[in-house]
């Protein structure tokens, strides 16, 4: 797994890198089964 390739979309639909989000400190990403 290449962490730098992990991406998601923000609420505006822009692609964001999970690794970049964690650059300023640890981030706990809770992957949900689905919304709702």
């Amino acid at each position, binding site marked *: *797994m*290449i*962490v*730098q*390739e*992990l*991406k*998601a*979309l*923000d*609420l*505006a*639909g822009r692609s*964001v890198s*999970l*690794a970049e*989000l*964690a*650059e*300023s*400190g*640890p*981030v*706990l*990403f*809770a*992957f*949900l*089964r*689905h*919304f*709702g």
Partner: protein
Amino acid sequence: MAGRLDEIRAAGARLMLVGNGSPGQAAKFAKGFPGVTVLTDPSLDTYRALGLRRGVGATLNPGSALSAVGAALRGNRQTSVEGDPWQQGGLLLLGPGGQVLYLQRNRGAGDRPDLDRALAVLGVGRKPVRRGRPEVT
């Protein structure tokens, strides 16, 4: 998990929720979690890269049925599925430099994120795991 936000922040971490519906569905969902960043991955690419399970068997099984009954008894009712109905979740604790500190892959729909184990990696509560090796379940 969002109910333990203070604990997560006290450990020096931020919580972000990642679903797999559309950005519009994510925005609607986010209204229920003020102060928490909500992201989405409709492509499921990141779910796959993390090895998170997906399938009918993981979603519909005796364990998930028991969990659903338990949730219903606690007053939690699932109203709709906005995203992939067969995708399972998990927990990823990522540190600076792209360091995977903890990864939990849920086995089925009844699995819950083990926040205590994730926070233990940050030195909260339980004895921290060995440095340099992520804990993967």
